[in-house]
């Protein structure tokens, strides 16, 4: 079983805010006036069926895709004009869809790549130890090429790698995708643990019921529009989520 949610902190000024975002791929519009906020210390979950625009939301936050209009604010400051590395340097960590490890590099090198923006070598070494404490499995794999690990292990590396940058906010795109049920639980537990240690988490999930167990707040995206949002506890029992969300999933 997954751990319960940490008590939700007061949503003061949000750490992350998406303000009237409209996004296009060529002529195709992917986001329609998207608004969402992520409060400090929270786990916020973006749910939605296949191709509803979840990953694109991640890419907008990380600056990999630029919105046609609208602003992304981080701690109140607009960041949507910045290139990705700059946004990362402002404290956004990323666990990308399908993990995207550097498969030819060792686990250790992957983790240290996560700390690429940092110069404090000693603190990096300490954080590496801490990450290995959190993900003990990885300690024995440090010298192994990341591409040779199992899916669950790769997910751990991806999360540990994101933590190594000491982010304020971690964006995770479908962290449980393709994992066995055992690993799914483990990964969700770890996300809750990371959150309890003070990192805000914004995550995208298709697996609504599990994600809602650890999240504080959730949004439901359907073909580029937020159709539902609220505290995770409310949504868990909200029949509308089934309609809205499963409706989107039918398309797969």
């Amino acid at each position, binding site marked *: 079983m997954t751990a319960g949610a940490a008590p939700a902190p007061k949503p003061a000024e949000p750490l992350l805010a998406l303000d009237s975002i409209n996004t296009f791929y060529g002529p195709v519009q992917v986001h329609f006036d998207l608004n969402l906020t992520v409060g400090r210390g929270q786990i916020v979950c973006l749910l939605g069926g296949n191709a509803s625009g979840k990953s694109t939301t991640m890419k907008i936050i*990380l600056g*990999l895709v630029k919105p046609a209009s609208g602003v992304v604010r981080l701690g109140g400051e607009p960041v949507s004009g910045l*290139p*990705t*590395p700059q946004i*990362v*340097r402002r404290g956004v960590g*990323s666990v*990308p869809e399908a993990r*995207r*490890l*550097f*498969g*030819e*590099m060792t686990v250790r*090198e992957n983790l*240290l*790549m*996560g700390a*690429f*923006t940092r110069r404090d070598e000693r603190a990096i070494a300490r954080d590496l130890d801490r990450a290995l404490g959190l993900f003990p499995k990885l300690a024995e794999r440090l010298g192994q090429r990341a*591409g040779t690990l199992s899916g669950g292990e790769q997910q751990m590396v991806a999360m540990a*790698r994101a933590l190594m*940058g000491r982010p304020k906010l971690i964006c995770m795109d479908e962290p449980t995708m393709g994992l066995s049920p055992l690993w799914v639980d483990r990964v969700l537990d770890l996300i809750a643990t990371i959150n309890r240690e003070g990192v805000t988490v914004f995550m995208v999930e298709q697996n609504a019921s599990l994600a809602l167990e650890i999240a504080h707040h959730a949004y439901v995206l359907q073909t580029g529009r937020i159709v539902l949002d609220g505290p995770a506890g409310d949504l868990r029992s909200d029949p509308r989520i089934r309609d809205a969300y499963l409706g989107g999933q039918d398309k797969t």
Partner: protein
Amino acid sequence: MSSWFDYTLNGIIIGNIYALLAVGLALIFGVARLINFAHGSVYVVGAYAGFVAVTQFGTPLPLTILIAVAVGALLGLVIERFGLRPLQGYAHIAPLLATIGISFVLDQIMQLTFSPDPRALPSELLQQRFQVGSGTIGALDLLIAAIGLASAGLLYAFLRYTKLGWAVRATAQDRDAAQQMGVNVDAINRTVFAIASGLGALSGLLVGMYYNYIDPAMSFQATLKGVVAQVVGGVGNVPGAIAGSLLLGLVESYGIALFGTSYRNLFAFVLLVAVLVLKPNGLFASRRQTPPEPMTGTFIAPSKPIHIPYRILVALALVAALLPAVLPDPYVLQTLTNAWLYGLAGLSLTLIAGTVGLISLGHAALLAIGGYASALLSINLGVPIGLSILSAGLIAAAIGTLLVFPSFRLRGHYLSIATLAIGEIVSLVILNWESLTRGPIGISGIPPLSIFGIELDTDRSIYWFTLATLVVLAALQFRLLGSHLGRVLRAVRDDDIAARSYGIGLNRYKALAFAVGSFAAGISGGITSHLYSYINHETFNSQLSILALTIVILGGMGNVAGAILGSVLLVGLPEVFRIAAEYRVLIYGLVLLLLIRFRPQGLLGTV
């Protein structure tokens, strides 16, 4: 004859020099997904930087090396700035073509500055040789081996143990993910271009010292050798590039030992085509690797021909036909005749590139086949000229299609490199098959153009003949493109994946388009041989291939009228303005660069 020891040693030394080139190409490909065709130009610039330093300032060797590397690194930054950065978001073939343009410009600048004549690159080092067993080893050999090893070692340490090196590897593996780690991938690009070009310049300097000989024309061969070594070792694979280089060096050296110097490059390119077709990931690729993704994007930009009304085309053809009556100036007529012949080559390439999306970098080979075919048929077998030219078209279509057929399973960059290599192979076979082609002497006394026994001996009659040929073939091509078959061919280009599901038929369509296109090229080569009365293996050289490509891009890919317009502009205008030959190549390079950047769909194309 020297001993095998010497040949092995020579192979390793040359392999070392190639490795310095190939490693840079691999690094650049790794992070930028680009085969940098300007790499050989950097090599030449490195050699000349060393030459100037030594001859003008008498620099000692370590300083000379430092200067060459620094000049090379700076040049690398310039190439990245103009060849790559503005083209982000363009099709992957665009920066490749841009680097071809840059290399034309750089090579021509070097030629204008230092003259095309070869120079000696004296090295105070080292005519000393030491006896080793049955052979000897020179101090220079040792130096080159040491520099090769030291560079490889430094590069390894950099990639393996430094943060920047990790970032280079991370960017090469997954550009987006690297950005999400906070890596500024543009800065990584620049770093890699600087390192790669520094090594390339060092390579040029060492070659110059090794042979005590440099000339600006070394550039293209150097690029090709680097590309061969890299492809053999696996594109983008740094250790593979080193292994591929040593292998290439040894193959060449033993090949020379067995067959003679003129076969050297033949081995290199046969090796390249064999590896491309049989093991496109290189000899040392690990099993799980899939071919790098950019190898798929084939065209520069979507380009649809602007619709030109039939009446206007006919009117233009009439104007062209009546021109000799109005303006009987022989110079103008000869110039336009030349433009019509290049127009035929352009028609040929635009059909192939514009329909099935095969961007050929070795198109001159088809003209060479046609030229030799018509010349030999008429001289050796007494075939009447008109018939010999027609046969030249058919022979070019047959041989050309047979040669590229195995490469049809390749795509994108790989395919273009294969056509480049096949073009070089054709030229080398012509050079070496002396019993048929008279080898380096070339064929002289080719009978002048005639048709049905009537000699075309005036500028006017030749003009009309070439114009008529062009108009007929252009009209046929219009018909073809408008037909059902034309649409099928474009479908092959637009959606290779979907078309692939039709299975084997795909290659047949590619072959068909290639054969039809080659026919026009063969005709062009055939006519040319009778006009020149003398041809050799260099008449139809790689510059012509690139000129043909520039003509086609200028007009718009797949654009019949565009190919002719491109030819008139690129071949005719420089002539009319009497621009000296050495500046023309410079202009072609610049035109190619500007087109790719500002009008990739061509003058007569719309997106």
